[in-house]
């Protein structure tokens, strides 16, 4: 429905920089997720696309047309908000109908469109209720219906599931993805939840401190992180990051020695390895330490090993058990080892 280009976007309030040097091309019909911690600038970037904030510098282009000077109400975007933002004085029917009235859609089409949107989110039985009489999940679906009712060019979703419980969130996630695929509407989705990002996105934009850290598909982000921020942000439990020295293809840190690394770099580096790429072997190979904690979860057991003053998380077999403070050894999958420059945090390739 629409292609969006963000060109050198900056946003600052006086001396405070909210967003800097954001450059993204969002493809038509793409589902793109802005992911990052609170205050990273993801919502501000989305609000600039909506027209609710003006960029201090740069251009927002939709289908070749620069949107900077165009009011929010004249951009063909629909937004779903974290707090639902349903109009409390109107029934759900009137809430869903509101954008149709505002955009001058002929009156005789309203009823059919409202009912179709309500059907899409399975809300037809609640149309005559006020938002206050609905549960959180129903309100969120009403907000979704209001966004899809007029088939905008772009969907913007600002943490739409963060007020829902885990079970409902999972169900809504599936519904959102289904609706987006069905309607084929370019969607920008903001979240701090990596599971939401990984499951929903065609591409993820990871942001921190107002700047983009990496753009890529969920697989690229997970398997090929650009820096230590991305490496540590994605994955649960997160990637283990150990600072040490690299000399002649050998990485050393207290309790850890990894040989035969195919790299031309040397000096102070950070080694990254995901918990699922570590194996408890019983043979001293890469890590020798003591058992610090064992957390059985049913399908997997998380083992924490202390090596030097560093705690290393290992995804062990579901039946793995160990006594605290006993020695333990761990082997890393050398094909899935990541090296980062300790000073800059950037990936060493």
């Amino acid at each position: 429905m629409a292609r969006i280009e963000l060109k050198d976007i900056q946003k600052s309030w006086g001396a405070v920089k909210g967003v800097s040097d954001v450059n993204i091309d969002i493809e038509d019909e793409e589902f793109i997720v802005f992911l990052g911690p609170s205050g990273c600038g993801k919502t501000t970037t989305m609000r600039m696309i909506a027209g609710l904030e003006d960029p201090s510098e740069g251009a927002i282009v939709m289908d070749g047309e620069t949107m900077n000077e165009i009011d929010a109400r004249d951009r063909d975007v629909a937004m779903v908000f974290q707090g639902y933002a349903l109009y409390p004085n109107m029934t759900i029917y009137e809430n869903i109908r509101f954008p149709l009235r505002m955009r001058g859609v002929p009156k005789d089409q309203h009823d059919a469109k409202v009912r179709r949107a309500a059907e899409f989110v399975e809300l037809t039985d609640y149309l005559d209720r006020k938002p206050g009489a609905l549960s959180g999940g129903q309100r969120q679906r009403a907000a979704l219906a209001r966004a899809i009712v007029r088939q905008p060019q772009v969907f913007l979703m600002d943490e739409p599931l963060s007020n829902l419980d885990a079970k409902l969130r999972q169900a809504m996630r599936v519904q959102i993805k289904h609706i987006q695929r069905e309607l084929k509407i370019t969607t920008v989705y903001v979240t701090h939840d990596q599971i939401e990002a990984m499951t929903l996105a065609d591409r993820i934009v990871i942001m921190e401190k107002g700047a983009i850290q990496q753009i890529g598909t969920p697989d690229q982000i997970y398997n090929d992180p650009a820096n230590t921020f991305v490496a540590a942000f994605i994955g649960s439990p997160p990637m283990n990051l150990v600072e040490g020295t690299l000399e002649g293809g050998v990485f050393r840190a207290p309790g850890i020695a990894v040989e035969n690394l195919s790299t031309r770099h040397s000096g102070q580096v950070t080694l990254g390895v995901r918990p699922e790429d570590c194996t408890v072997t019983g043979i001293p190979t890469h890590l020798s330490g003591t058992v610090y904690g064992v957390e059985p979860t049913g399908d997997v057991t998380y083992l924490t090993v202390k090596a030097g003053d560093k705690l290393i998380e290992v995804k062990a077999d579901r039946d793995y058990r160990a006594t605290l403070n006993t020695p333990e050894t761990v082997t890393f999958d050398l094909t899935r080892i990541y090296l980062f420059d300790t000073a800059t945090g950037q990936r060493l390739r």
Partner: protein
Amino acid sequence: MASQRKKSKGENLALRYLILGGWALFCLAPVLWFLSIGLRPRTEIITPQPIYFPSFSLDAWHMIWSDWPMGQYLRNSVAAIIGSVIIDLVLAIPAAYSLSRFTYKGREDIGFYILSTRMMAPAIVAVPIFFLFRNLGLLDTIWALMLIYAAINLSFVTWIIRSYMLDIPKELEDAAKTDGAGELRILWEIIIPAILPGIITASVIAMIFAINEFLFTLLIASTPDAYTMSVALSNFTGGSDGVIYNAIALVAFLAFVPVFLVVVAIQKHLSRGLTMGAVKG
């Protein structure tokens, strides 16, 4: 044990009713006192001995309606008050919207300036206002009363409504903007319905102030054409008949009744409104 607890619970409830009933009687006592004076013969009121079983008389009731244009006073009061509240709302709602939602230089100063007009002693501006209305040819008219009541109440009506607007989540307006609504639409369809309890609260308070206003009404109204209930009261004092206490009491009661009825009718909104502006929900 259970019966003891039940008994003490019952006693507790009785005590609560006793305290609340006592307080209600204390608050209503002046009103009931007015009514009891107003419905007694004049001779009984001015007698030095206390009368424990007063006799009932509608003399004062008949007198205020036959000897005085009480209907006109009431009409004048109602017209001036309703007119002033409408003027206040028409001016205060957009002003409050601007003060609460738009960012511009001097916004806080303008807000404070609006409030500061309320801090002035009314007597200071009495004479200039008299000349102003005389030059405008509005002396002794209901229009002048509407304007002056509106002017007196405008500052706090603006501030009350502003505080309610500040409590409305910004997300609602953002949603309306992306749905395609302009500023006036947002104000009319989203903001005003959301702050209705606040608008009602501000209106009732403005009505109470207006019905009790005396100084400017006396200054501007010089004939029954513009007399309101508050000035009518002063007509029953002095003159060849002396002070007519039972008529005064009855007129005071009549002035009280409309406001009382309005407050009872909108009680639910009023109590919600008085707290909503103060606490973020």
